[in-house]
């Protein structure tokens, strides 16, 4: 599904990813952990196609296609979704309008017909209910004045509406209370399916109790320095990054 080989990425003239290799099969959930500033968000932006994140070396193959050559919005239409660490505010644009615009943009790109206003409303309402996102929130301007937790829940709501093939969750668990965390995890688990893959970036082993990953990668200084099953998270929690990063060096 996703095959990253020897990826080097430069941001603002500085090399952040320095030969990262990672591969995810359909149906799998992988977790990425790693110290602050190790390049986790950078990786997520490169996969999503943010401008300013230049791939200087290496390859990213997504479902047999060269992801680098694909426009940002085309990646979205082809199923790449990034739940952002810091969701962005757009004043004056209601959440509902944004969801409708995004959904129909993706559909159009895939050659599907637009969903009418009523169709969108039904879909969004049903999904919002599952995730405890209030009707009132949908009427407010996108992310404007939302609490940290509300913003994260809205990201997951979008994920469940767009039903991506590759979902990247960048610290979606940060800032969530216990109930919200469970809800988000349920949302993620509900989307788990044999044709879908997920990449979950987190600092906390706690999330991985709810979303049990097939594999954990530890990212430090722009490279994967350790890999393992879910027990690796426990080891990290007990011993800290220094121990593992030190070992790898």
């Amino acid at each position, binding site marked *: 599904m996703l095959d990253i080989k020897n990826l080097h990425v430069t941001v603002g003239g500085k090399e952040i990813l320095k030969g990262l290799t990672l591969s995810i099969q359909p149906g799998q959930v992988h977790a990425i952990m790693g110290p602050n500033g190790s390049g986790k968000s950078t990786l997520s932006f490169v996969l*999503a*196609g*943010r*401008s*300013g994140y230049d791939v200087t070396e290496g390859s990213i193959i997504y479902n047999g296609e060269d992801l680098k050559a694909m*426009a*940002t*919005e085309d990646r*979205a*239409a082809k199923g790449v*979704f*990034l739940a*952002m660490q*810091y*969701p*962005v*505010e*757009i*004043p*004056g*644009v209601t959440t509902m*309008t*944004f969801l409708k*615009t*995004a*959904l129909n*943009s*993706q559909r159009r*790109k895939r050659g599907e017909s637009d969903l009418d206003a009523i169709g969108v409303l039904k879909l969004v309402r049903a999904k919002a209910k599952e995730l405890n996102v209030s009707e009132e929130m949908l009427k407010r*301007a996108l992310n404007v004045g939302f609490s940290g937790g509300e913003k994260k829940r809205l990201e997951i709501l*979008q994920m469940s509406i*767009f039903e991506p093939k590759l979902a990247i969750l960048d610290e979606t668990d940060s800032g969530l209370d216990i109930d919200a965390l469970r809800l988000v995890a349920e949302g993620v688990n509900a989307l788990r399916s044999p044709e879908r893959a997920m990449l979950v970036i987190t600092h906390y082993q706690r999330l991985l109790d709810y979303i049990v990953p097939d594999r954990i990668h530890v990212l430090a200084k722009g490279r994967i320095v350790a890999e393992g099953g879910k027990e690796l998270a426990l080891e990290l929690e007990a011993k800290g990054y220094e121990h593992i990063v030190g070992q790898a060096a």
Partner: protein
Amino acid sequence: MSSPAQLETKAQVAEIGDKYKYGFVTDIEMDMAPKGLSEETVRFISAKKNEPEWMLEWRLAAFRRWLSMKEPKWARVHYPQIDFQDAYYYAAPKNNPLKQSLNEVDPKLLETYNKLGIPLNEQMALAGVAVDAVFDSVSVATTFKEKLNEAGVIFCPFSEAIRDHPDLVKKYLGTVVPVTDNYYATLNSAVFSDGTFVFVPKGVRCPMELSTYFRINASETGQFERTLIIADADSFVSYLEGCTAPKRDENQLHAAVVELVALDHAEIKYSTVQNWYPGDENGKGGIYNFVTKRGDCRGDHSKISWTQVETGSAITWKYPSCILRGDHSVGEFYSIAIANNYQQADTGTKMIHLGANTKSRIISKGISAGKAQNTYRGLVSIYGKAKNARNYTQCDSLLIGGNCGAHTVPYIESRNPTARIEHEATTSKIAEDQLFYCLQRGIPQDEAVSLIVNGFCKEVLQQLPMEFAVEAQKLVGISLEGSVG
């Protein structure tokens, strides 16, 4: 539920493909005045319209006055000297006396209106919109007269009003914008060719939205319409004007005058969607739009509300204003001004508080992209007798890219210590992270810009009549296409 006319408007807007879809020229035989401007031109226009002597005298007085005036230079706009002798001041489709039904109108004209997306047909009746269309200099067809007649509302071409309602015209013409007001208004007074006249009698709520579409078709022609709207006591009227012009390499002059009069407890809502040709990416061609619009809240508790969406023109010089003469009268100005490429916009409003307890509200949204310059220029003036006057002004500027400019020039004069004036101003940019967020969710760049800008303008768009809000939103998007590289 959407009416057929709304659906039609939406469908037509959806078809917009080209950046300036109105840039076509209709090939119709024209009746033109000789080129240039002289007393002869003024007499020619007046004669063409079979005007009474008093109207001709009024025009001639304006023309003589104009000869002694100088073009204003204080606005933040730059353009080469206009050669007023190098233009035509009258152009009318040949053999086109006023039509009683649409079937009589030249099919080519109707086709033009269709291309413009003007639903000038029976469907419009369902939406409750009456349309007066001004093609170059003359009014071509006025629809839905009967329904308006029943209500006692007069809605007709200006030339018809001079003929059929001379007393009303004499009583109100030039009382809000005096002949001597400013260079362009004086020029308009001398050579105005047609326009719209509206009179809403006492206690009448106009049964439909009134609407005029202006189009400049002929080349090297100036357009000088004159609009006069009078809302008698306790009446209400909502009026919308739309403007387009074909693509041409030379600049064309548009100098209109709009006068509004609201008597006791009357309300006038005046909306404009202005999409004159803005010139090409290199600043060649486009309309010079020098317009004087003013409303007089003459009666107590009267209200005048201006809403404008300005996306077109090479140069916009326009300050729709309110004279708050009646006690408790209210003036509002809601504006979206978009300037892209080499467009220059210098626009704003004047709120003149004369009466006690008068209130005004100004919401201005300026968007600049490309190499454009966008200036908000506003005056809030509180006179000595205007005790407890209130003004709230909010000026927001949005910049797209690094080569454009936004300027805010608010003037405030207060001669009454009880007045309360609030002014807020912000300047922001479309942030890269906002664009990325939209792209990541599958929204293409141009659509993302349109979405973000429409969000920025929301408070103003909400003021537009429903049927036109959709059109205006699309226009906002189209006029900014390709503005983010």
